């Protein structure tokens, strides 16, 4: 196929189809409607199903049903719609089901706005539904990466039977960029002998359930699940380091903001200011160890967190680095984006006379 020009929303939909997802359930909300539109146009061509549900809540529960039967299932929405999906996601986590949820974030809280934001970081990484649960959370920074991470999400989600989320934003969703699907690694779906998909009396029946009335049983199920979470934290961390080797100040940033920060690093380097970028790609599992290693280096003097919210990732950086070095914050919110020059100014303010 070679390189094509696509919106992030179209690319994530195409990547989903290429991963073998044949069950997409959506409900419209800006800025992610192109996902549904693309699915509606293209799912029938491959014998798949694109269904516009009556609400976000219905859509996520359809994902639960499809995933329980062992197929690759997917839904997408934007911030307010994702809040509505939180109950369903908790049930999916409680049933140990794999699936993919795409959140093309917009400004909040409430109806907020329709421009890009990253203000669902807390929700995605800490509080996506009630109960002791985790989601795999991936944050792409380019449209090529949204494609890579779609495949990664389905694979990892199935391997550990944990739901996955691609936490992206209105800019990545709407912007157009060259993307090459030939670079995509498509794996075979994992064994799903647990699936409840009809057996014609050939095996023991499979039951998908999140209700455990006896506390001893529920505790055992949760503890077993947390053993899988520990495996994920050990094996599935993803991050990128850019010019961190000799950096005095390290920007910690993800998704679209990391891209802007990379430009800020390049601007700073031109002026001989030693700045690097640390970009978490998996937001859960969080790349804590790699950050701690950077914090332990003598050359590292300061961390600067930058994201499109009021500083939701700051605590994760402080905890990861054991507060060995000061952590500052610079971000924009409400749909505003920082310019690389703004970030550079902040870097200079922190490094003081030295820059």
């Amino acid at each position, binding site marked *: *196929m070679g*390189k*094509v*020009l*696509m*919106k992030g929303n*179209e690319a994530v939909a*195409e990547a989903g189809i290429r991963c073998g997802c044949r069950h997409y359930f959506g409900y419209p909300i*800006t*800025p992610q409607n*192109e996902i549904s539109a693309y699915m509606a*146009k293209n799912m029938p061509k491959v014998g798949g199903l694109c269904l516009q549900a009556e609400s976000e809540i219905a859509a996520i529960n359809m994902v639960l049903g499809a995933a329980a039967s062992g197929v690759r299932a997917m839904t997408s929405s934007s911030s307010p719609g994702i809040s509505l999906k939180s109950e369903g996601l908790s049930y999916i986590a409680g049933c140990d089901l794999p699936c993919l949820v795409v959140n093309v974030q917009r400004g909040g809280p409430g109806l907020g706005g*329709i421009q890009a934001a990253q203000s669902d970081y807390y929700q995605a990484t800490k509080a996506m539904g009630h109960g002791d649960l985790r989601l795999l959370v991936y944050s792409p920074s380019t449209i090529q990466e949204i494609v890579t991470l779609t495949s990664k999400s389905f694979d990892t989600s199935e391997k550990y039977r944990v739901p996955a989320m691609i936490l992206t934003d*209105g*800019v990545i969703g*709407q*912007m*157009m*960029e*060259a993307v090459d699907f030939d670079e995509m690694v498509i794996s075979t779906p994992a064994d799903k002998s647990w699936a409840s998909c009809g057996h014609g009396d050939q095996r023991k029946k499979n039951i998908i359930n999140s209700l455990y009335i006896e506390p001893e049983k529920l505790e055992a199920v949760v503890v077993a699940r947390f053993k899988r979470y520990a495996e994920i934290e050990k094996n599935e961390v993803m991050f990128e380091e850019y010019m961190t080797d000799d950096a005095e100040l390290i920007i910690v940033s993800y998704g*679209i903001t990391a*891209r*802007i920060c*990379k*430009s800020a690093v*390049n*601007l700073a380097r031109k002026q001989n200011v030693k700045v690097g970028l640390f970009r978490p790609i998996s937001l859960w599992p969080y790349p804590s160890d790699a950050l701690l290693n950077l914090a332990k280096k003598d050359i590292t003097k300061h961390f600067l967190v930058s994201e499109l919210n009021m500083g939701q990732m700051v605590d994760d950086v402080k905890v990861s680095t054991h507060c060995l070095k000061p952590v500052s914050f610079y971000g924009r919110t409400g749909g505003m*984006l920082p*310019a*690389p020059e703004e970030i550079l100014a902040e870097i200079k303010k922190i490094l003081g006379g030295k820059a």
Partner: protein
Amino acid sequence: MFKNFIIITGHYGSGKTNIAVNLAMTLRQSNKNVTIVDMDIVNPYFRMADSKILLERMGIKCIIPEFANTNVDMPALPAEIYSTFNQDGYVIYDVGGDDNGATALSVYKEYFDKCEYDMFCVCNMYRPLTADPLDAVALLRDIEKKSRLKCTGIINNSNIGVETDEKILFNSFEYISEVCRISGLPLIFHSTNLNFFKMQNVTKNIWRLKN
């Protein structure tokens, strides 16, 4: 060269707004009056309103939906559009993507029919849903159906964004010839952001990596 009323239509994300804005700026160099009309009722992002200051500085009149980029999330078209049918100079209509976007044109069918107009369909072979000339022409026909107007020419805007090079452009020539052959329409021009043609990208690009 062009009729006075120029409609720019095409696939979602084919580059209509960039073409419309660049065409307006080029035609303005002839010192004729140029008006550009934002008729996009589909996409609230990357629209002409973003270039309003630049265009007005060049003396180009901009007619944009009253509520574009405001708190009123309503795709209403301004009544002022009717005034464009009795004025001198060029008027460029930047229409929303696909047949859905073209629906907005059909209201003005009687007005367009009374004047001479060009309707150009912008094509980019690197957009997967129109990568096949047959699909591109099928969409063109859908656009004609929904707008109740007839296309008069094809614009080749085949590109993959900032990564576009000569090869990307040259590889599209065969494709665009096919689109023209199947549709029976003439090729109006090729466009590119490569240096030898000087097309200005007006899309907001704050997130583009600066080296």
